[in-house]
């Protein structure tokens, strides 16, 4: 049972990376990240893992907020457009379909100048708050 946890709380990994939650815009979930050295890859630019993490969080949260539930990521596809050093990233995610216990979301990541850095889509399994997790 997972009803002892708040489905709106942030994960430990969210805090470990220093991600911030911003106010929603329309139905978009917005999260942001100020880039630090620990986010860099072997070439000294932003690691793609940051893109994947931001999209996973923003898209999952968009489903969570629609259904007041927990989510488990089933799959995710990300296209990367920028591989360079950035100051700040903003990720906007929204749910596009929820059918039964499956939800889908799409999202985009922009840098501090509004350049489109990455986009992604993901499918999530929906676990009702208080429901039992069966993987």
């Amino acid at each position, binding site marked *: 049972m997972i009803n002892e946890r708040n489905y709106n709380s942030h994960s430990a990994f969210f805090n470990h990376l220093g991600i911030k939650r911003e106010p929603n815009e329309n139905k978009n979930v917005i999260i942001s990240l100020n880039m630090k*050295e620990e986010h860099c890859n072997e*070439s000294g630019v932003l*690691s793609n893992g940051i893109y*994947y993490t931001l999209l996973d969080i923003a898209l999952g949260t968009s489903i969570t907020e629609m259904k007041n539930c927990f989510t488990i990521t089933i*799959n995710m596809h990300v296209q990367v457009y920028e591989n360079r050093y950035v100051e700040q990233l903003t990720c906007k995610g929204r749910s596009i379909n929820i059918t039964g216990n499956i939800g889908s979301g799409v999202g985009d990541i922009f840098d501090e100048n509004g350049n489109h850095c990455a986009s992604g889509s993901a499918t999530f399994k929906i676990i009702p708050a208080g429901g039992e997790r069966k*993987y």
Partner: protein
Amino acid sequence: MPLTIDEIHKEFAHCPYLHHLGIEIVSFEEENVRIKLNIKNELLNTNGTLHGGVYASIIDFVQSMHLRSVTKTRCVTMSLTVHFTAPVKTGYIYAEAHIISKGHKTAFVDGVIKDEYGNVVSKGTGTFKLIHV
């Protein structure tokens, strides 16, 4: 001028994000790259299992390491698809990759993560652009 495998290994060994996640390089030889991660609390999601962003990061790392061990060039990820097949909460996970197809400018690479008992917990396919200097 192509890099040597030792130079590429050193680059990854000093990668800040690799250290931030706690990923260790088990082996780094041509066509034989293996990495591992000791799952710690700071890497978990709200369900108490390893965060999807960590799975995807590990797959991306092992794919690019494996590809670079073969090509000796730099490479950048153009796209990545990840399937999350099972949750993990504790212990170690291990990742390996293999090249599906490699041209002069583009390569497709598969990556797989297994738990310490050999069960597949995630698989992914990446498309990479090869940077010839």
